[in-house]
């Protein structure tokens, strides 16, 4: 962002002033001209303008996978249960209550009566069963959801307002999974057309607080308040999601007032939003969600199979320094995969320090030393030289890579950086065809289950692509999935983090906060555990 610094330069300012006089004369004319016909209606204070960085694929919640459609569908569609914005407790949404059998296999939901889709048709158990069947239908492009519901044996209608899910095995997240399943209106979708291309994907009908109004491809998606919504009506009457492809252009729009809410990048937060004017117009909100970044060491590669080498790599990296340099200190160093403000995170474990001397001792114990005196460590005639594989879109990984390269070379380790386009990168990672990489995980629903990333069964073709395998960890992960007592589960997870801390399969880096600017046109803008919720916002009275 050298550009912005450039503009603040004094020379540019004087030069600019001359132009400004000329140009403002023209602009005066222009505004006179357009203003005359009275075609600039005043901005509606009850409209919220949101920013979308990419166009959603579809607004069919069963097929959609991208973040944009998720953000919009959240306001249109509802699920059986929701989670409290602060406590994360499971709370009723479309179901008024539920019963769980003693063997934790049967989940019976009692639906609210008198809930209507925004076209006036009543919501019933048939919609739930239909949605489940569609998700599991091989002809439906819903692979991303299927994996969650594979353990469900059946979903059946008990009566018009009761449905029951039957699980094959107990799982403490089962309630959240089946209760959070997307539900679509059967009477709209079940018309014999191809579900994947159904026109309702672009004209969604839901039960939520907002209903769909317009989709102007590549430009915007508009929602308005749902008149048939049973709950408290939000104050904001209209939500416009503006599709803007370039984040820098979007940032300008934010400052100009064309957008009301936007996530900022670290540099924008730190350097470009400190003017008095910005503070007068925007709240700057910083909050942590469940995300973290890491460097993963592929244990299938000789050097990183040894725990001492992995630990040495962590000790060789000055994470505090990296955090300050790359992220302006906006973030926290983490020691494990759990949400840092959640119950599962173990605060008794302290991050490994930056300690090159200890790292060298560890490497030497592991047999890595500079035997031939060429400045590079070697062992049994093999040089310690590896490749850091990253996706070309990630600026963070790229800059991290150059710092790592420098730090490691001081210790006699040679590292090359290899960038690939996302699709190629993904294939390399999935094929476990890499030495080390840097990525981030996010757990948007605060599920905390480490199975997907850390269980040894997930090494082949799964998310455990670094190949972490530890018998005790496996046992903990398996038992925790069956443990419905939260306290006991948390104890298990603390032990699990100790193992991770000792083994260092990842060098855990940082959890970075969401940095959001919200227009001061709105009040009651609160930060919850789950983030912001514009349903509760008020509109500031203007004089």
């Amino acid at each position, binding site marked *: 962002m050298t*550009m*912005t610094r450039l*503009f603040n330069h004094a020379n540019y300012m004087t030069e*600019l002033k001359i132009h*400004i006089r000329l*140009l*403002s004369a023209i602009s005066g004319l*222009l505004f006179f001209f*357009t203003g005359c016909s009275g*075609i*600039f209606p005043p901005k509606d204070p009850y409209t919220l303008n949101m920013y979308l960085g990419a*166009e959603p*694929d*579809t607004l069919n919640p069963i097929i959609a*996978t991208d973040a944009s459609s998720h953000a919009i569908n959240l306001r249109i569609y509802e699920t059986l249960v929701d989670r409290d914005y602060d406590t994360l407790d499971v709370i009723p949404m479309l179901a008024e209550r539920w019963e769980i059998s003693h063997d934790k296999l049967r989940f019976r939901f009692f639906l609210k009566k008198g809930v209507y889709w925004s076209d006036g048709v009543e919501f019933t158990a048939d919609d739930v069963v239909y949605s489940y069947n569609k998700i599991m239908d*091989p*002809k439906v*492009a819903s*692979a*991303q959801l*299927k*994996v969650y519901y*594979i353990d469900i044996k059946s979903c059946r209608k008990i009566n018009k307002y009761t449905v029951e899910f039957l699980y094959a095995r107990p799982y403490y997240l089962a309630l959240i999974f089946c209760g959070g399943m997307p539900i679509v209106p059967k009477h709209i979708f079940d018309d014999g057309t*191809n579900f*994947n*291309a*159904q026109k309702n*994907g*672009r004209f969604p009908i839901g039960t939520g607080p907002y209903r769909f109004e317009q989709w102007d*491809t*590549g*430009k915007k998606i508009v929602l308005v308040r749902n008149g048939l919504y049973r709950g408290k009506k939000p104050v904001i009457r209209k939500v*416009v999601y*503006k*599709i*803007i*492809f*370039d984040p*820098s*252009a979007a940032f*300008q*729009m934010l*400052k*100009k*007032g*064309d957008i009301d809410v936007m996530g900022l990048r670290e540099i924008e937060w730190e350097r470009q939003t400190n003017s008095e004017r910005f503070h007068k117009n925007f709240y700057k909100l910083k909050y942590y969600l469940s995300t973290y970044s890491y460097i993963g060491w592929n244990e299938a590669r000789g050097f990183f199979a040894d725990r001492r080498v992995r630990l040495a790599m962590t000790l060789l990296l000055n994470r505090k320094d990296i955090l300050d340099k790359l992220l302006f200190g906006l973030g926290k160093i983490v020691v494990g995969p759990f949400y840092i403000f959640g119950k599962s995170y173990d605060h008794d474990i302290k991050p490994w320090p930056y300690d090159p001397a200890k790292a060298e001792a560890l490497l030497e114990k592991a047999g890595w030393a500079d035997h031939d005196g060429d400045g590079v460590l070697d062992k049994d005639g093999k040089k310690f030289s590896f490749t850091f594989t990253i996706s070309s879109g990630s600026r963070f990984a790229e800059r991290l890579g150059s710092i790592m390269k420098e730090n490691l070379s001081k210790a006699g380790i040679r590292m090359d950086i290899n960038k690939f386009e*996302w*699709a190629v990168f*993904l*294939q390399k*990672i*999935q094929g476990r065809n890499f030495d080390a990489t840097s*990525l981030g995980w996010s757990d948007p629903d605060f599920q905390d289950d480490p199975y*997907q990333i850390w269980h040894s*069964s*997930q090494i*082949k*073709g*799964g*998310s455990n692509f670094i190949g972490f395998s530890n018998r005790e960890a496996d046992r903990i992960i398996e038992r925790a999935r069956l443990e419905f007592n939260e306290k006991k589960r948390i104890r298990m997870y603390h032990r699990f983090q100790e193992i991770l801390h000792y083994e260092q399969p990842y060098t855990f880096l940082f959890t970075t906060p969401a940095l959001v600017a919200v227009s001061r046109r709105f009040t009651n803008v609160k930060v919850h555990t789950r983030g912001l919720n514009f349903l509760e916002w008020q509109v500031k009275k203007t004089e």
Partner: protein
Amino acid sequence: MKKYLAKRALLMILTLFLITLLSYTIIRIAPGDYTTLKLGMQGALKTGSISSEAIEQERKLYGLDKPIIVGYADWLAKFVRLDFGRSRKDGRPVLTRIGEALPITLILNAISMIIIYIISIPMGIVSAVKKDKAFDRVSGVFLFILYSLPHFWIGLILLLYMSSGEYLNLFPLGGIHSDWAAHAGSIPRLLDFCWHLVLPVITLTYGEFAFLARYTRATMLEVINQQYIMTARAKGLAEKKVIFVHAFRNSLIPLITLMATLLPGLLGGTVIVESIFSIPGMGLLAYESILSRDIPVIMAITTISAILTLLGILVADIMYSLVDPRIRLEAKI
């Protein structure tokens, strides 16, 4: 002429066939496919074997389990019926998606090209006539400076200076219509539209003058040194007439070669300009479909631009013979 056209048509079909076959093969061998990409990092890697079954099912849905040649044959069979299939992204027909993106790209490109031609050809002529004089030198340097400024930089600078409201607030920050335009009359709407196009058109054009101006200058110089120009001058013709009637007309021939790139050029969008100014045009459509391996869309865009390129070349060849009767078409194959 007829025989020539028939021959050319056959050749074009053959070329088109090879282009599409090659494109299809390249997309299919390129790493990554739509389903895996759609699921992303977390989805694609979730619960191992179970998810790979789900992914396999979905690949089958899109015909990605078939060998390349079968996949191509399927595509070709649909294409000859002018059916480009449906986009993977949103399940809508590919032609609908192209239909949405095309008009704005066409308008932007047409305006830009007209401006580029109107400004650079006269500049080229003047530079040639005043070879090595101040105008020639200064305009040359100036155009090359413009040429070397990157689009993404200039685009953002224009936005920041002209639209952000921090310095000036002359133009909108992107898009092609204001929010109010939907309810306005046709004249304010048109004005609003033009108002939105100013900055994108500037960004699209400023760097393109250099090439055409220099090209015109070079061909003009070649012609000016010909003996018939000397003859024209010797006859005592006015300099204007010598330059515009005798010299310029003859220098047109090489310029016609450029015409061949005009047709496909009208269709191609630029990702950078479109993304900076939030214009949902062809450039972004193509870019996004390539990144997500949306094969039907990629194939449709490739095929259409291949057809236009081939047509452009044909038109240029025919124009040659019109401008210069010495060129005989039959001899060209």
